[in-house]
């Protein structure tokens, strides 16, 4: 079985897995980082969103074979060192989560947005967040929290 040295949150994880295993399962079951969630499995819900070299991707659609050796993967566990990220602080301030299951993915999308756009307008927020579903319906708070986070950055 192939062996992959995955750089996840600046730590190299030696992963022995089939080449077609989607990244989400390697992260969750093999690197044992459970903050990234499995949702729909078809890139419709965004619960599995992580960063690949800073870009938000749906890790359920990313086979290990497609990840370059130098790639840096960031998960929800990797954005809050040493303190909570501004987006996480804003999420707490707005009391965004209900069940919270989708929020790792929501936050990873929001962090990626604010990295490239420090002060997004409403349309830009919607465009960046459109791929992240929340069944509890926390969207209004998500959008407000992103605006607040942009002021903190």
């Amino acid at each position, binding site marked *: 079985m192939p062996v992959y040295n995955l750089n996840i949150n600046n730590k190299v994880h030696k992963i022995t897995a*089939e080449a077609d295993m989607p990244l989400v399962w390697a992260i969750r079951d093999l690197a044992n980082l459970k903050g990234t969630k499995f949702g729909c499995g078809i890139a419709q819900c965004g619960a599995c969103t992580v960063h690949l070299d800073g870009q938000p991707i749906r890790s359920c659609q990313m086979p290990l074979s497609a990840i370059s050796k130098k790639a840096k993967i960031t998960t929800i566990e990797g954005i809050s060192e040493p303190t909570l990220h501004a987006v*996480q602080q804003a999420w707490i301030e707005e009391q965004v989560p*209900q*069940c919270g299951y989708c*929020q790792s993915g929501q936050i990873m999308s929001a962090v990626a947005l604010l990295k490239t756009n420090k002060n997004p307008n409403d349309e830009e927020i919607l465009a960046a967040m459109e791929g992240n579903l929340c*069944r509890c*319906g926390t969207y209004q708070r998500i959008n407000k929290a992103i605006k607040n986070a942009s002021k903190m950055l």
Partner: protein
Amino acid sequence: MNNNRREFLKTLGLTGIGLSIGLDGFSKNASLKKLSPATVALEINPFIIIENTGKITLVNSRPDMGQGSTQAVPSLLAEELEVSLDQVSIIQSDGRSKYGSQQSGGSSSVRGLWMPLRKAGAAAKEMLIKAAAEKWGVNAADCYAEAGKIYLKGTQKSLTYGEVADLASTYEVPKNPKLKDPKDFKILGKFNKRLDVPDRVTGKAVYGIDAEIPGMVFAKVVHSPRIHDSIASIDDAAARKVVGVLDVIKIERAMPHTKVDAVAVIAQNQWAALKGAKALNINWKSESSKYLNQNTSEYFEAAYAAAKKPGIRAEEKGDFDANFETATQKLEAVYETPFLAHAAIEAENATVHIKDDGSVEVWAPIQGPDGALSQVAQYLGVSEEKVKINVTLLGGSFGRKAYMDFLNEACDIARKIKKPVKVLWTKEDDITQGPYRPAMLSRLQGVIDNGRGTAFHHQAIGESIAGQVFNGLRPNTADDWLSGELSQENNEYGFGINKVSYSRVKTSIPVVWWRSVYASNFGWGQECFIDEMAHEAKKDPLEFRLSLLKNAPRFTNVLNLLAEKADYKTPLEAGKARGIAVFRSFDSISAACVFVSKTDSGIKIDKVISVIDCGMYVNPDNVKAQTEGNIVMGIQAATKGGIIFENNQCVQSNYHDYNILRNSEIPKMEIHVVENYEKPGGVGEPGLPPIAPALGNAIFNLTGKRERKLPLVL
């Protein structure tokens, strides 16, 4: 007022436990427990544990699926115990009967536990004060409790709860402890940040899917596309070749009312199990004798036929039929709501370990640990003492994870492979297998006399959850679970003549509770039809309602507040309209005003204003959050496609064809919470029922066209 809870308990055979929580402990001495050689804990009742180290543990008995019970339930204890939640540890109950009913459902947590848990907290506080007074040799009346300490009035003297716990444990538990005046509440009714939120934004929160135990294997269950079919043969040669697949076995999916065949692919990791399942070739044998209205078209055909015939009378004031027959100004309409999937983002899952000594341990996102405990014991044929239930957080549920077929599957696999196993459904399983919210019709008839509504009849038509799931509905009986919500006592519309009836339409499509249960169906018909009656009477819909509700002050207050916040009296510009609706469910009244406008691409929902009167509540921000969620889910239910069965199987399979609202699709939302000292009502569900009818009424006001069938095409 509301039959849901009682009926639910009765059906599951839990009557008599529900409200005796905590009270049970008052008749007995508190118990001392050895936790470790150095630590003694005072368990005043099952909900409060004070260790002599000073550690205080409060028990949350209601699983948290996002409705906020992790904060709300312990707050009831903490308020009277005089501790703040950041001073205590909170643990989830394990299903044992000492915690009473532990089912999150029916928006029952706060309204059901409000008095019992406050009493539990107050009793503990009285005992701790008495112990401090004894230590100091003073009167208990000269002592008071605050923030986890007992103080002697007028001095600097204090003792922590831990310091007096040993002595307090020697006292009888007071039967009628004095409760605080709600005006003195420090926690209840106040905004406090939910302390579980940080874990939910850092990836640390543990959901069912995150359970992991040593030696665990992973299973993917393959279900019958037509739900009820049996297996003729399995070709598992390709599946077994998938790297990581350990085994392929035939199992059963044990639903509450029926068992069906299924196949489990067991693997070393979840991906291998999923891949193995795709490689399986199962020859399903059609069990057509089990299909009953298993196509939605057949079900609706049967329902519309039932709408042409009288139903079973649930309640009647006056002689409706005679009045309707002779009335000169009358109207009649049939409203339709579809089947819906819960579609929580975390799919059904459970981890089960059957140990060598025969004991069983479960980790699962489930709505009721007590139900799970008895279900697992019964299913595996072991005593309840041998079963340990660990409830994880639920990644959404909305009723689905109270139906624990997935837990039985994990039990069946664990006993067959003799290894701990995690079963994880996929979104496809979740969407195609049900259970679903039942599709229902409302046949409504109304009489207008002199500009007033004088007679009203709501005939509820469709499958009964109690009937299908629990086999708990006798023939020719109205399901009071659903008719209770339509009763005049509940809606308080002052029609002089009023009737509620029910016609059951059976289906083999599995059904169960879905957020706000039947209120999500019948709010649509009731509240659109009230608008139809208002228009027939040439009255404004708000005025028409207020005249019918003049003896219902909480309803009129909610409607007047809504009218004020929605600036109802001010006309809107051309191309814009609004609609209102009000509905009581789970002892709370919620009203909504939906604003719509015409655009080039259709009708746009601009804004929703909701008002909720849930009596006293724990956290106003959580009431708002739940109501926001109900608006979003209510709009989805009203505007997105319902579940369709064709060829006896579900047409949709995942979020690409079963659509839930995306971020860009939500309107602006504004929530107003009524302040009063009424008994607490539900919070998690009551905001949903008025959304669809308020939207339907807004669309009529915009277009002049009355829509009676959901989903609406915007």
